[in-house]
């Protein structure tokens, strides 16, 4: 070999060494712990019982012994059968990938080992270049030298993407099956193990059929690898998988969580909330929240059926926007706290929090404010008789003739019955007598905050209000005139327990307890035999009061009601204001669409609570009267019990 060649070779070797070294030195540094990302304290939102509503991290790290062995087997078999033998790089896989890529002229086939995938997840993006591939291999080789196989597998299963915005097997198990990773069955584990290769495609929430096909593939690979028997595979294929759309382990309060996050971010900044490890204590009750979500889901399924829509779960992503929405808010009228909040049917598809942001016409659910304003005058009694007949009111040079819902006029009746049957004409007459400004002031005093027009059509709910406002105003009545500033954030503390923010409950007396009781008594009749009688038909027997509401052309269906313990407002409607019309063209009223959701919710959350009555304040007496005349009933005639003020 000539001297020149030797020099050239030496230079070439030095160059290769230099390039190799500079490439090595430009690679990312490995941390002491592969789970470092997930180890920093995340911000946690707690409920009123100290339970976790949501951890603001999209992964939850668990040690390997807390993951079902079948899942680990499935993952290793599927992703990297030679995992326990190689040093981070699979020659066989590499050769196979090179051949495939050369034949197809692409870089689609990666042949990556679990260690390479981990390196990619931790440090690199998803671009497929040869340089990136080499970098991944180099980092993978270091990972293998620095960490045990168990640590590598642990980091891998805690980092991988399982779709639905969740990473790591623990959170994936909770999200899809509402259980911990340690408790996964073979059927569940094999389904989960199949997702990471292509999460959007194999996500069982969006594509259950494809996910099950993928599961079968995983199971067959496990049989081939000797992990399981053919019989076990067949049993797993036959197993019915119950997917949990409501995750009791991590909460099902996405709308509420978003509300809390928005509030906290506004106050402390996004970095502090997302990465600052804050501890946010809220008033939300996880059990009530779970039942609220369940009731909304079940109630809406019935509404969908009436509207002739296929089950929501089966609808395509773009079709889901065409489904009706619902909102439910539950308050504790005595403490002034928010106990449950469901802002819509699917946070991922429609994240608008309708409890707070949707301003809709309340329809007849506004009527109690008119009656309240009237009853504040001691001269007005629920037993007063008004006549339900044709009415003509000149408005701006035209004549307005309010009609009843069923286009019938019922003649004379006492106010209690007029409210129970939601008689429009009598409510407008009362409004005219009390005057709109007085009603508006009373409604504001009780807790409404939106702009209310001072005109007679307000009596029938022609104003835009949110479910939160409505629940708050009804809660003032349920609380016998004490109005709270309803809150859901109790305290925000730093990771080191420094108090950063706290809420001091504020309340004041805005109405007389006697007036409130008279109205409660009237609203009880709504449920007992009035427009919300479906509540009783559904078997809810506890003392309860409430009012239905249906806005014009069935665009909004409301039910706002309360027991002595809880107040809940339910709204159902389309976001784009379309009428809620069933396939037979009948409209969905508050009684039909919203009251069942309220009833399902209240029935379940109060199932074990002792029955309590609305306490009757002194100065109130009960009288039995004729619902048409307001005087003592004739024998054999209809009668109704009415709470009235004692005559002095």
């Amino acid at each position, binding site marked *: 070999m000539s001297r020149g060649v030797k020099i050239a070779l030496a230079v070439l070797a030095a160059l290769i060494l230099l390039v190799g070294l500079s490439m090595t030195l430009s690679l990312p540094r490995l941390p002491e712990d592969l789970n470092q990302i997930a180890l920093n304290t995340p911000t946690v939102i707690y409920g009123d019982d100290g339970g976790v509503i949501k951890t603001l991290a999209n992964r939850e790290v668990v040690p390997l012994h807390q993951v079902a062995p079948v899942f680990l087997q499935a993952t290793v078999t599927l992703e990297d059968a030679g995992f326990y033998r190689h*040093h981070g790089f699979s020659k066989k896989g590499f050769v196979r990938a090179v051949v495939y890529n050369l034949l197809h002229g692409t870089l689609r086939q990666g042949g990556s080992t679990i260690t390479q995938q981990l390196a990619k997840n931790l440090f690199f993006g998803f671009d497929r270049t040869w340089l990136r591939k080499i970098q991944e291999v*180099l980092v993978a080789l270091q990972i293998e*030298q620095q960490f045990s196989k168990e640590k590598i597998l642990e980091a891998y299963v805690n980092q991988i993407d399982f779709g639905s915005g969740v990473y790591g097997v623990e959170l994936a198990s909770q999200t899809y099956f509402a259980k911990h990773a340690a408790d996964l069955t073979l059927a569940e584990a094999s389904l989960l193990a199949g997702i990471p290769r292509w999460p959007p495609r194999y996500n069982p929430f969006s594509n259950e059929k494809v996910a099950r096909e993928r599961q079968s593939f995983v199971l067959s690979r496990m049989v081939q690898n000797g992990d399981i028997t053919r019989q076990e595979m067949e049993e797993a294929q036959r197993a019915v998988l119950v997917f949990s759309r409501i995750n009791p382990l991590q909460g099902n309060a996405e709308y509420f969580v978003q509300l809390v996050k928005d509030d906290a971010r506004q106050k402390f900044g996004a970095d*502090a909330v997302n990465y600052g490890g804050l501890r946010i204590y809220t008033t939300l009750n996880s059990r009530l929240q779970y039942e609220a979500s369940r009731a909304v889901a079940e109630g809406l399924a019935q509404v969908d059926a009436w509207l002739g829509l296929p089950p929501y779960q089966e609808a395509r992503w773009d079709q889901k926007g065409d489904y009706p929405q619902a909102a439910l808010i539950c308050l504790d009228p005595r403490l002034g706290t928010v106990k449950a909040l469901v802002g819509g049917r699917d946070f991922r598809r429609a994240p608008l929090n309708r409890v707070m942001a949707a301003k809709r016409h309340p329809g007849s659910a506004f009527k109690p404010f008119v009656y309240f304003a009237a009853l504040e005058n001691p001269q007005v009694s629920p037993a007063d008789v008004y006549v339900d007949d044709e009415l003509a009111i000149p408005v701006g040079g035209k004549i307005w003739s309010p009609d009843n819902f069923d286009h019938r006029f019922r003649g004379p009746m006492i106010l209690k019955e007029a409210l129970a049957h939601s008689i429009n004409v009598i409510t407008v007459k009362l409004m005219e007598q009390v005057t709109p400004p007085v009603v508006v002031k009373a409604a504001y005093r009780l807790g409404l905050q939106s702009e209310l027009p001072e005109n007679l059509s307000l009596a029938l709910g022609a104003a835009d209000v949110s479910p939160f406002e409505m629940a708050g105003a009804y809660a003032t009545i349920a609380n016998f005139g004490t109005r709270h500033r309803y809150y859901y954030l109790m305290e925000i503390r730093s990771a080191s327990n420094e108090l950063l923010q706290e809420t001091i409950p504020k309340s004041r007396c805005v109405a007389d307890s006697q007036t409130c009781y008279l109205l409660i008594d009237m609203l009880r009749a709504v449920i007992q035999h009035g427009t919300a009688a479906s509540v009783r038909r559904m078997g809810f027997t506890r003392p309860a009061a409430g009012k239905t509401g249906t806005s014009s052309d069935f665009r909004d269906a409301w039910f706002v009601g309360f027991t002595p313990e809880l107040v809940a407002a339910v709204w159902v409607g389309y976001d784009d204001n379309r009428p809620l019309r069933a396939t037979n063209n009948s409209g969905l009223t508050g009684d039909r669409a919203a009251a069942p959701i309220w009833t399902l919710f209240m029935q379940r959350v109060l199932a074990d609570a002792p029955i309590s009555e609305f306490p009757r304040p002194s100065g109130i007496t009960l009288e039995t009267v004729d619902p048409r005349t307001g005087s003592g009933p004739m024998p054999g005639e209809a009668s109704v019990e009415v709470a009235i003020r004692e005559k002095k």
Partner: protein
Amino acid sequence: MIKEKLKKWILAYKWVWLAVAVMAAAEALFDVAEILVGQVMKGTNALRPKTGRLWLEEEKDLAGQQQVLLIVDSLSNNPFRSGPLNSLEELTAYLHYKNFLRLQREDFLSLYQALPDSDARRLVDAQALAALMSSSAWQSVNLISSDGQMTLIFNDSNNQPLLVTQPFAPPPPEVEPSVTSQLQQDGRFSGRLVEPAHFLAAYQRLPRRLQLQVINDPAFMEKKAEEWVMVAIAASLRSGSVTLACEVREEQSSVIHTFQASELAIGYLIQEINVLRRGAEPLALPSKETTP
């Protein structure tokens, strides 16, 4: 024989054996290379930059924690984490919820200034506050809510009360007719009179041990501030002690109670009184006993 056969068989497949040997060697070499590269990477780990997704996340975490530290810092001057309190009503609601609140002197003064004048004066009279402010003894205030009553206890650094106020206490029963001070007319105490407010505040500032050396009768000190008419401190010692005259209302008139106080304790008391009466002529210490 067998040996020959085996040899033949090996020679017949020598290329296969060679290929196997080469592959095994390559495999082993590759394994060694993998380990070697891994070790080089491990050795250079500390020299490499913190780049990539993991470190970006780490940076965000640090930024978040930094942000929280800044928030904690900025809140250190604000004892009310529910937002500023702008009225006595809000303070009452706050205390009703919290039951107890301890404010440092500066925090209390900020609160005092934030409240409307009339509300602030109900917490503590402006003159009494001025007296407290004029001394360095006052350190903190304990605000206590109990049975719907708010109590403010102004403490010194030893947590000893200097002054106690109750903003919502019922006004003292009107005492009619007003009682004129007998001590004011007593020539022996000329120039030795002390307003009860100053005396009581100064007394509260003394350590318990000295308090008992001034008036060794805790029951007497239970009397309400409005019952006190005047206090006088004798100008000289007698039998090693100083006569302290306290004039208090009893029924329709006033009664003078005298106490023999220790010279040392009276010295501290006068010192405190002079601090509180800053601007007025200082009260002199009692003169030593003179032999008749």
